[in-house]
């Protein structure tokens, strides 16, 4: 079993003819992702990396029965493309772009809820079912099958930690990037629920950061509903309040979202928080043992 996606998942690439779209289509195909089509208005009939291009998502879904879609669309046009995917019946929507306006993100999430679709991102590296299906932009080589589920708010930091796991010969079941924006689709709890149900996932790594209350809510969920061990790493211990640390969501405002409150909540839920990214594998090993 795998969560959200697997080697059969029929994936579409929106914005496939752009630089990023075509490059990552190649990378995803190399990883083994079942990419069935691309969408690029006005470019229907072309091919990118052997993948047929359509003018609209409706056309692509009609012809290719796509279930998932990944967006490489500039932020000002991302809402339209996302709503199109949802209306056309896409059930897993991965929003790569950053700088999508907040109000647009809320509009997208409202429609996703209506259509009962899963949205990953925006401002995410995507998600990967290790060894089976990658819908995202992360470097292929670090995502090898194993017993650990990983869920993260940030990108490169997640690669860093997964890299440490790989060095320690620990592979992953699924790795999900929630995205660094203030309004994103999936949250920690959604993914933790899936990991809890997934028999292949034995231990979970949660990579959080300052700002918002997602980690505190995750801690409450872990305490009440999770039987599997969770290990965490949190970025932003040294960040001053009132400053956005790169991510829109990574800001300590009005005394909320501090590193300390998150660590406290996670510790209270029995979650060990690593003090350095490189310490995560050790903690995971103690849980797997």
């Amino acid at each position, binding site marked *: 079993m795998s969560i959200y996606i697997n080697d059969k998942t029929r994936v579409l690439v929106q914005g496939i003819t752009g630089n990023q779209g075509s490059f990552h289509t190649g990378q995803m195909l190399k990883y083994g992702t079942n990419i069935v089509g691309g969408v690029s208005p006005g470019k229907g009939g072309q091919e990118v990396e052997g993948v047929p291009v359509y003018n609209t998502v409706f056309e692509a879904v009609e012809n290719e029965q796509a279930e998932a879609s990944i967006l490489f669309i500039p932020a000002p046009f991302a809402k339209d493309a996302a709503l199109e995917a949802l209306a056309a019946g896409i059930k897993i929507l991965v929003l790569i772009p950053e700088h999508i306006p907040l109000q647009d993100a809320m509009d997208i999430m*409202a429609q996703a809820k209506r259509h009962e679709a899963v949205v990953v991102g925006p401002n995410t590296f995507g998600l990967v079912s290790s060894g089976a299906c990658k819908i995202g932009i992360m*470097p292929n080589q670090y995502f090898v099958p194993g017993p650990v589920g990983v869920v993260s708010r940030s990108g490169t*930091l997640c690669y860093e930690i997964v890299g440490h796991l790989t060095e320690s010969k620990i592979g992953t079941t699924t790795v999900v990037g929630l995205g660094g924006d203030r*309004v994103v689709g999936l*949250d920690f709890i959604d993914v933790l629920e899936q990991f809890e149900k997934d028999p292949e996932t034995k231990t979970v790594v949660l990579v959080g950061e300052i700002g918002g*209350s*997602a980690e505190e809510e995750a801690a409450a969920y872990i305490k009440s509903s999770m039987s599997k061990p969770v290990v965490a790493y949190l970025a932003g211990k*040294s960040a001053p309040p009132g400053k956005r640390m*790169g991510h829109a969501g990574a800001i300590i405002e009005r005394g909320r979202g501090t590193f300390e409150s998150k660590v406290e909540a996670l510790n209270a839920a029995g979650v060990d928080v690593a003090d350095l990214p490189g310490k995560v594998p050790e903690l995971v090993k103690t849980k797997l043992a």
Partner: protein
Amino acid sequence: MKLYEHLGKELFARYGITVPAGRVIENAGQAAEAASELGEVVIKSQVLTGKRGKAGGISFASSPEEAEAEAEKIFKMELGGFTADKLLVEEKIQIEQEIYLALTVDGTVRKPVVLASLDGGMDVEDVPEDRMIRWPVDVTVGMQGYMVREICRQMGVKGDLQKEFLKLLPKLYKMFRENDAELAEINPLALTPQGLVAADAKVTIDDDALYRHKELPRIKEKTALELKAEELDLAYVELDGEIAVMANGAGITMATLDMVQHYGGSPANFLDFGGGANIEKTSQALELLLGTNPKVLLINIFGGITRCDVVAEAFVRVRESKGIDLPVSFRLVGTNEAEGREILEKVGIKAFNSMDEAVSHAVELLNAS
């Protein structure tokens, strides 16, 4: 982007929300003129820092002379590191009750949320949880009368005051949505004999949506380096330590700062130069960093879409053209790692494999400097 109070109030007024009569002034003389028109006035420094009142940035005057004297004082005041170019001189309103009202974005429910409390005037974090009504607004429905009635019921508001809210809240919501606001806070919202009046205005516009609001002014209450970083589209935050840090990705940059602190150093900045930057942009990011006069430079690259050779090449170019002589600790792994290392080795730099090594080395360099 935070709007100055007077700009927020202009926006409010455009949406039919009542604000006190007022004038924006640029010198103390104008304060006297404004006071002679408005009578008893309140004079407010137009800076973006919170707690402006406690710091002395708000003053009252009952004559033009007094207004001029107070304005003069406030113009000289430094508040949160900035002095005000403009003051807002407003009629003093007769306040019967102070209310808190705001619209903001709640990431947990992924919706705009109304915050309302009869404990107005207090800092929002000081209002007890159970006295602060939170109402998430479904964007597919918008602000409807029933929501206002229910918010009022939960606040314990009835009758005429409820009618005032029924008029006000849909206007505030429209303003919030149409202007891509992240926050629209009125504190205090003053109940006066003439109805509800927005006595203050804190409006923040979503930076990512500014492109569709050409009509809004651009506020630049930032340091020179922060402004430069904004131009270059870099995520940059000035800190007060000694090790300049550059990395790719917000999370890993934060983690790098944390690790600098962990090993006893102090970071001079947060600089995430993003993913997939080219030589030009990488060079500009590096030049920006050197402008802070750090004692050590720490570069932490885990290349995904970012190519190691591009970063190394940019570093060598800037080093040569600007003559960088400060100690450097470089971590370089990922896409085109071998090519990148080769470029660095030619100039005598051996890149580290791990973030840990690179950061602890940077701290050693600092201690040795």
